Structure formats: structure tokens, C-alpha cells
């Protein structure tokens, strides 16, 4: 393991000093606990992190350095979703597991590929992590702990409870909040962040969940699948870093309506 985690913008909150709000429905109140080195090493056995990446050559090295500060390289799975820049080559230099989609299929497809591979490797817990540097690897143990403790099948990261998303714009916040309402009505699940790529799944949950949506609608489909399989989920606050790079690469807020409609149509065809 080498490299210090990159400096992050936004307020720094020590883990263990937060308590979570109460979420209704299927949720528990998650209490964060301080990790000792001892517990963290067994905590992360057979934990695989899946990083879908499409044209992230500019930041994938920093992302991988961040991850390798927490997990061994052989537990990091980068899914190169048909990038036409150096993303794949850079990932391979790090000795992490690299899967390559010959043709770009979308983030949902990349996640599903990585998850399937992780299951074949015998993963007990699978963490999904964005490839554009929005997430912090240091928070992975917090996400894994409730699954290890048997308190949840799925842990969903949220940027709207406790830790503030640094640099998030007002319009983005509005769109995401509307998305929460949409999700509540359509999928019947109450979450505070309907589109956060930082999640953790138990092996059982990962085996039950079927992601058929290749594109960005996979996030909504995932929540549907949690409901369908009656999986126990909790939410944990996570840091999400916004900067010019991630804003430029991310979805336009106006695209949300299109995604909503696409998701509804996909549900009709199920």
C-alpha cells in the first residue's frame, strides 16, 4: 500500500463523532464506531471494491492510490467501460484487477460486470465506488461494518445527512431531492439520496440483485431490487466531493427528467 490519500475539499469530520438521523421504513439507526487496525484487517477480508470507469485517465491514478491505502490491490476491481483514453493502461500499472468492456455499455452494466466478477472471486462484501474521485476510500470500513455485524444487507451512502457534499450546487441538490420524492412514489422506498454510487452489499444481496439497466437508470433499478428482494438496508453519510472535473463529467441536472421517464418505461417492460 503506498501513497497518501489526496487532500479533500470540504469539512473534515472525524469518523465516530456522528450519529445518524432516523430513517423510517426498513432502516436502523447506524452508529459509527472507531476502527482499530486489528479489527479493520479482518473487517476487510474478502471485501472487494468495484470501480466503474469511463475515460477517467485524468484521475483514476489518484482514485486507485486512495483505494490502495485501504485495500490490497487484488481486492480492487476496475471496470474499464470501453474507455478510449488511457484509463485501462493506467489501472493495469497499479496491479489491481482490471476488467474491460470492449464497447461502452454504461455505468450500470460496468457495475454489474464488476459485481459478478467479485462474486466469482468469493467476495463476502462488495463495495461500489465511483471512478471519478468523488468518494473517499477512508470511509469504506464504515460502510462495511454494518454488513459484517449482520445489521444490514445493503449500506447506501448518502450526501444529505450529516456530512455535507462539498461544492454541490443548488440546482443539483434540488434535482436530487426531487429524485428522492420520485423514488418514494415509484419504488416505494425511502432514501435521502437516490443516486449515490458509494454503496456496500453483502454477498447475499449482491447475488439477489439483478441490474439490467445499463445506463444511469440502474440507480433507480437498484432501489427497486432492494424492495423486491426485501433486503435490509441502512443509509450512512458519506463525503461527496464536487469539483470542476466531476461536474463536467457528471450527469446534467436537466437530464434527470429523461432518466425518470426512461426508468418508468423500463419498468413497464419488465
Amino acid at each position, binding site marked *: 500500500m503506498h501513497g497518501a490519500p489526496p487532500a479533500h475539499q470540504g469539512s473534515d469530520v472525524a469518523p465516530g463523532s456522528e450519529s445518524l438521523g432516523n430513517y423510517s421504513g426498513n432502516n436502523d439507526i447506524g452508529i459509527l464506531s472507531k476502527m482499530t487496525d486489528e479489527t479493520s484487517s479482518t473487517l476487510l477480508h474478502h471485501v472487494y471494491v468495484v470501480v466503474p470507469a469511463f475515460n477517467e485517465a485524468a484521475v483514476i491514478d489518484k482514485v486507485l492510490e486512495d483505494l490502495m491505502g485501504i485495500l490490497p490491490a487484488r481486492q480492487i476491481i476496475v471496470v474499464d467501460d470501453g474507455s478510449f483514453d488511457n484509463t485501462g493502461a493506467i489501472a493495469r500499472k497499479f496491479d489491481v484487477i482490471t476488467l474491460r468492456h470492449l464497447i461502452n455499455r454504461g455505468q450500470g*452494466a460496468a457495475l454489474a460486470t464488476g459485481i459478478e*466478477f467479485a462474486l466469482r472471486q468469493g467476495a463476502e462484501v462488495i463495495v461500489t465506488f465511483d471512478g471519478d474521485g468523488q468518494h473517499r476510500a477512508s470511509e469504506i470500513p464504515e460502510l462495511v461494518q454494518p454488513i459484517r455485524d449482520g445489521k444490514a444487507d445493503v449500506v447506501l451512502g448518502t450526501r444529505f445527512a450529516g456530512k455535507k457534499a462539498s461544492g454541490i450546487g443548488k440546482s443539483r441538490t434540488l434535482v436530487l431531492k426531487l429524485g428522492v420524492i420520485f423514488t418514494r412514489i415509484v419504488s416505494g422506498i425511502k432514501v435521502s439520496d437516490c443516486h449515490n454510487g458509494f454503496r456496500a452489499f453483502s454477498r447475499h444481496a449482491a447475488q439477489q440483485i439483478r441490474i439490467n439497466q445499463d445506463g444511469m437508470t440502474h440507480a433507480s433499478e437498484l432501489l427497486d431490487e432492494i424492495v423486491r428482494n426485501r433486503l435490509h438496508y441502512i443509509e450512512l453519510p458519506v463525503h461527496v466531493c464536487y469539483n470542476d472535473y466531476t461536474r463536467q463529467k457528471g450527469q446534467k441536472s436537466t437530464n434527470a427528467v429523461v432518466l425518470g421517464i426512461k426508468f418508468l418505461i423500463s419498468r413497464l417492460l419488465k
Partner: protein
Amino acid sequence: MILKILIVIFGTFAISRSYLRYKDRLLTLFGALFWSTFWILAILAVMFKEWTSTISNLFGIGRGADLLLFIAVILLSYLSFRLYVKLEETRQDLTRLIRALAIKEAEEQINSSLWGK
């Protein structure tokens, strides 16, 4: 008048083509009959206009032409839906193929690096 002639000529041509394609086994019996029936009805419709009006009155629609248009729209909608579903199936098949290739390649790499040690 011209339309009548055109449709009768084209319809006869289409029916004969269906028959030939069926003989060549490029078209199934169902397909050939379906297509021929369609054109027979089209020819009858232009030759006996009153007939279409009678039928359309049964449905409560004014003109025969309106009924035909209505039926055509329904058929086209159904066809579009079928095409969309087929496209969606193809998309999923493609993704599954890409996924299988990606996993196969990675597992081979892992295995070969294990044996290499």
C-alpha cells in the same frame, strides 16, 4: 380512378410476389397468406368503396377511409412496440456478451499470472 388502378396493379404484383417468395421458402406460409390477405382486402376496399363504409358504420366510424386509417395506426403502434422490445432484448444480449468477454479475459489473466509464479 387512378388510385384504384394503381392499387389493383400493385396489389396483384404484391400477391404474386408473396406466392413466389413462399415457393422459394423465403417466406413462411403464414407470412405469405397474411400479406396476400392484406392486399386482397386492399384491392376489395378500393374497388367496392361502399363496402368499407358499411363496415365502418358497424364500428361507429363515419367513413371507410377513416376506419382503414384507424386500423393502420393501431397496427403501426403495435409494430413499433414489438420493435422496441426486440431492440431492448438485443441491447441486453450485447451487454451480456461484452460482460462474458471481460470476465473471461480477466480470469485468464489471473490464472496465467498464478501459474507464472
